[in-house]
C-alpha cells in the first residue's frame, strides 16, 4: 500500500472505477489521488492499469509541425488540411463512444475511410461473424457457469489481464464450485510473460497458432465422434487433443476462448470461424460458448457505433454516397502503405492506437504522452476518457457498455494540465464546424457489387 494514500488532506478514494485501457473493462478498481495529484490504483487493477492511471496529467499544447500553437490555430490548420483532401481517412478511433461518434460524423462530412488502430484483431471476429454468425457467452455468464475453458492464445496476462481472477477462478460462482474450472491452454509455450507454467487445473498444449483453424477443426471432428487423420496437428499430438474433445463433451458449460491478437494475422477469421464451428458442434449435446478475448482502444465499441449509425462496420467509406464497407480495400494500414491516403486524422484518446509512421499528412488527436514517430502536421492533445472526462466504452464481450467517470480535475491554480484538455468529441465537433456542410454529390454506381 502506498504510504501517501489515506492521509486526511487527500480526496477520498473512489471505488468501482471503470478501467478504459483494455476490453476487459474491469469496473471494480479503487483509485485515489496521491499527494502529487496523480491517480493511484489502490485496489483491483492490473499492471497496465496501474501504469496508465498513474501517468502524470502533463500540460499539453497543440502543435503545428512541432511548433506550439493555440487550439484555434491548430483547428484551423487541421480543417484546411482535411478540407482539401481527395483521399481522406479517419483512423485510430481509440476513444469513448462520444469521441468515436464525433470522429465518424467528421469522416462522413469528409467522405473519409474509417478504421480502428486495432481492427486487424477486431476483424478476425467480425469477418467470421459475417459469414457464419457466432455462439457466444458474456463475461458474467462465463464467470458463473463455465466449468471448462479451452483457450487459444498466448500472453493471456497481457491481452486479457485478470482473466483468471475475474472469469476463470472468481471467488464465487453461481452454478459451479468457485475455482473448480479446469481447462487447456493452446498456444506457443515460448511466448512471453504469462506463458509460464499453466495455472492449477489447466494443461498447456504447445502449438503454433498459425494452425489454430486446423486444431479447432480436428477438435470438432472428435467432438462429433470422428477421428482426424494423422498423428499431430499444429504441434499437438492427436491423443492429447482427444482429451480436450472428451472434456468438451463432458463439460456442462464449456468455453472456447481465444486471444484474437495472437492468431494468424492473415487468417485469424478462419480460426474464429473454426472456433464457432467447434462451439456449435459441442452444443449438439451439451452447452458450450465462444469467448473472444483481448482488444484495446475501445475497438469493439468503435465498430458498434459505426454499425448502429451507418449500418456497416469499420473499414468503410462514409459520406461519399451510401456507406460502403470493404474489409479489403478500406483496411487503413494497407491504404497507408500504398500511399492511398492524402490526409489522415488519427484519434488516440485511449491507449492502443500507436500513431502510424507514415509520410501521409496527419492530424493527430492524442492523449498526452502518446508516443509520436515524428511531428505530425497538426497535433491536438485531448483528454483521456474515464480519467479526465465522463463517457462510456464497450466491454470485449460485446454486451455491457460501461460508464466512465471523470477522476481528475483541473488544479485550482488554473495551470493547464491534461485534466483541462478538451474531449476528443469537442475537438472533433469544432473541426466539423470548420468544414463545409454541403455533402459531396452522390454518385450511384450502376452495379452494386461490393
Amino acid at each position, binding site marked *: 500500500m502506498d504510504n501517501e494514500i489515506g492521509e486526511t488532506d487527500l480526496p477520498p478514494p473512489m471505488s468501482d472505477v471503470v478501467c478504459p485501457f483494455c476490453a476487459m473493462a474491469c469496473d471494480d478498481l479503487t483509485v485515489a489521488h496521491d499527494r502529487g495529484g496523480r491517480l493511484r490504483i489502490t485496489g483491483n487493477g492490473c499492471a497496465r492499469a496501474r501504469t496508465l492511471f498513474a501517468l502524470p496529467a502533463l500540460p499539453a499544447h497543440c502543435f503545428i509541425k512541432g511548433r506550439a500553437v493555440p487550439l484555434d490555430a491548430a483547428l484551423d490548420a487541421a480543417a484546411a488540411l482535411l478540407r482539401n483532401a481527395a483521399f481522406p481517412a479517419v483512423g485510430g478511433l481509440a476513444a469513448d463512444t462520444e469521441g468515436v461518434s464525433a470522429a465518424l460524423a467528421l469522416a462522413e462530412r469528409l467522405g473519409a475511410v474509417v478504421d480502428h488502430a486495432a481492427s486487424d484483431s477486431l476483424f478476425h471476429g467480425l469477418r467470421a461473424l459475417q459469414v457464419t454468425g457466432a455462439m457466444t457467452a458474456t463475461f458474467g455468464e462465463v464467470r458463473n*457457469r463455465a466449468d471448462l475453458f479451452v483457450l487459444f492464445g498466448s500472453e493471456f496476462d497481457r491481452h486479457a489481464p485478470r482473466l483468471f481472477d475475474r472469469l476463470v477462478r472468481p471467488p464465487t460462482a453461481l452454478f459451479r464450485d468457485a475455482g473448480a474450472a479446469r481447462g487447456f491452454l493452446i498456444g506457443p509455450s515460448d511466448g512471453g510473460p504469462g506463458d509460464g507454467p499453466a495455472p492449477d487445473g489447466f494443461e498447456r498444449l504447445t502449438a503454433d497458432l498459425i494452425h489454430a483453424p486446423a486444431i479447432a477443426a480436428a477438435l470438432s471432428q472428435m467432438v462429433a465422434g470422428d477421428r482426424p487423420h494423422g498423428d499431430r496437428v499444429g504441434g499437438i499430438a492427436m491423443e492429447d487433443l482427444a482429451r480436450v474433445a472428451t472434456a468438451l463433451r463432458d463439460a456442462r458449460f464449456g468455453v472456447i476462448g481465444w486471444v484474437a491478437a495472437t492468431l494468424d494475422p492473415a487468417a485469424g477469421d478462419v480460426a474464429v470461424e473454426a472456433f464457432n464451428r467447434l462451439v456449435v458442434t459441442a452444443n449438439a449435446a451439451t452447452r458450450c460458448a465462444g469467448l473472444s478475448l483481448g482488444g484495446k482502444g475501445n475497438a469493439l465499441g468503435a465498430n458498434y457505433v459505426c454499425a*448502429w449509425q451507418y449500418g456497416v462496420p469499420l473499414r468503410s467509406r462514409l459520406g461519399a454516397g451510401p456507406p460502403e464497407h470493404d474489409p479489403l480495400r478500406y483496411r487503413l494500414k494497407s491504404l497507408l502503405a500504398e500511399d492511398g491516403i492524402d490526409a489522415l486524422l488519427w484519434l488516440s484518446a485511449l491507449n492502443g492506437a500507436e500513431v502510424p509512421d507514415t509520410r501521409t499528412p496527419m492530424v493527430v488527436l492524442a492523449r498526452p504522452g502518446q508516443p509520436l514517430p515524428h511531428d505530425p502536421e497538426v497535433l491536438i492533445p485531448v483528454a483521456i476518457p474515464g480519467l479526465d472526462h465522463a463517457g462510456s466504452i464497450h466491454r470485449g464481450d460485446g454486451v*455491457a457498455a460501461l460508464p466512465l467517470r471523470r477522476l481528475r480535475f483541473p488544479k485550482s491554480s488554473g495551470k493547464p494540465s491534461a485534466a483541462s484538455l478538451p474531449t476528443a468529441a469537442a475537438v472533433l465537433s469544432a473541426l466539423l464546424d470548420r468544414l463545409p456542410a454541403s455533402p459531396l454529390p452522390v454518385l450511384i454506381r450502376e452495379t452494386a457489387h461490393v
Partner: protein
Amino acid sequence: MSDAYTLLRGGRVCDPAGAADGTALHGPPRDLYLKDGHIAATPPEGARIGEVVDLDGRIVMAGAIDIHSHIGGGKVNLARLLLPEEHREHGSGPDGLRRSGSGLFTPSSFVTGYRYAEMGYTAAFEPAMLPSNARHTHLELADVPIIDKGCYAVLGNDDFLLERLAAGATQSEVNDYVAWILHATQAVGVKVVNPGGISAFKFNQRRLDLDEAHPHYGITPRRILTTLATALSDLGVPHPLHVHCNNLGIPGNESVTRDTITALDGLPAHLTHLQFHSYGTEGDRRFSSAAAEIAESVNRSPNISVDVGQIIFGQTITASADIMSQFRNSGLASPRKWVCTDIECDGGCGLVPFRYRDKAFVNALQWAIGLELFLLIEDPWRVYLTTDHPNGGPFTSYPHLIRLLMDRSFRNEQLARINPDVAAHSRLGSIDREYTLEEIAIMTRAGPARVLGLRDRGHLRPGAVADVVVYDDLPDREAMFAAPALVFKNGRLVARNGQLTATGWGDTIVVRPEFDSAIERRLKPWFEDHQTVRLGNFRIADGEILDHGRGGLSIVPTLTASDSCF
C-alpha cells in the same frame, strides 16, 4: 418558446381518444392550434397566430406509436453486423439534412428515425432491452432522431429473480426489484420472454412448458409470469407486463398461449407478437391456424391487450432474447448464418435471418393467421399494429399492412396469390371486416398510448404533445399512410409528402415507480459476488441520457388505485 400559435385550419380530425364521441371524422372540419410544442386550446381573441396551414379537409391524426419494434440495442446491432449484404443493397448518402445510413429491416439509427417520421410515426418502443445491455441500448437510441422512444426491460430469466423466487421471496421484494430495474435501466415497462426458458437453455434444457419446473430453480414459468404481472400491477406501472409466451413458433403453441391468458387470471398483461403464438396442429402438415380460438380468448379477457407481429413476405431477420427458440430454429436460417448468445445471467440474444416465402405453406399461413387475429379481435383498443419489426418484417411495411386491413378486396387479391392451400385452410377469405380510419387511429395511436400510460400522446386534446400527422384521404390506403402530407413532431414540421424536411431529437420515455431502496442492500452483494459489473456502474444516470443533448426524459406517471387500467 414563442407566444405565437400555429394554426392547422380545417382538417377532419380523427382523434378517437380525444373527441367525446370518438367519431369527429364525420363531423365538420375543425381547427387545431399548436403552441410551444403542444396542442393548444382555442386561443383567446387577439392572440398572435404565426403560421397558418390550410388542411382543406385533409385527415388529421395524432402521431403514430409503435408499441413493439426492435430498433436498437445489442441484438439489433449484431444483426446489422451479421448481414452486410442487406446494408450493401439498401444504403443512402448524406444530403445535407439526413445523415447517411443503410439497411431495410435492420436500418441504421438515423435512418430508423427518418423513416418512422416520414410515415407519421412519432414514437417507437424497443421491446427487448436486457438490463445488462441497457446502457448500450440507450446509447444507440440516442442516435435515433426525431421520434420518442422507450424500452421494456427484459426480466424473467435473470438469475437474481429466479434465485429469489426459488428462495421464497415475497411479492413485495420482487416488486422492489422490478421497480429498481425500471429505474436503473431507464425503462418504461417490463417484458418477459419465454419465462424461465432462456435460463433453462443455459442448463442445456431445450424446451420448457408453462407448468414445467425449471431444471435448476424448480420454479415454473407460470410462477414467474404471474409474479411479474402482479409486480407491475402493484407498482402502478401503466404498461402491464409485456409477455412473449413460451414455445414461440411451435405448432400447437396456441394452448400455452391460452393457458397463459388463463394463468394471468384477470391481471393486466400485453401479449406480444401474438401471431407467432397462435398455431394449431391440424391438417396434413400438422400446422394450422388457431387464430379464431386465440381471438376468442382475447375477446373474453378485457385485461389482455395484444400486438400481432404480422409477417410480411420477403427477407428479414428474427431477433429475440429467446435463445431457446432461436437455437432450435437455427437450421432455418437463410442465409445460413445465425447468432446465439448467453448473456450475463440475465437473458440471451438469438439472431436467425429468415426469408418468408409466399409460396411456402407455413409462411403463407403465418401471414393469414396474423390477419385473422387483426380481424377477429373485436376491440381495436386492445390490438395494435406491429410486425414485431424486424421479426415478421420491417416497420416500413405498415402502410401495406394497413391497406390489407382496410381493403377487403385488396386483401383477397393477395390471398389469391399465395400458396393456394392457405385459402383452403384459413377463414381469412370469408372475413368481411374492413378497418375504418377511426379503428386504424385507435390501433396505431390511441390504443398504444393508453396501454403505455402516455397521457399526453396518442390524442389531440389541448395539452398533448403536438405530434400531428395530416393525411390526404386517398382511396389507396397504402399510399396514404406511406407518405403523409404533413408530419409535426413537438409542433415542428418534420416531413412533407413522405419526405423529411427537418430533423431533431425526441424524448426517452421512462417510468419511475416508488420502491423501497433497501433492495439495493440485497442487490449490491449480488452484483459484487456474481456479476461482472458493479451495481453503481450498472445503473444508468439521467445525465447519461440528457448530457448528449439529444432529447429529454419524459416520465410516465404511475397509476394510482383510482386509475383504471383501460
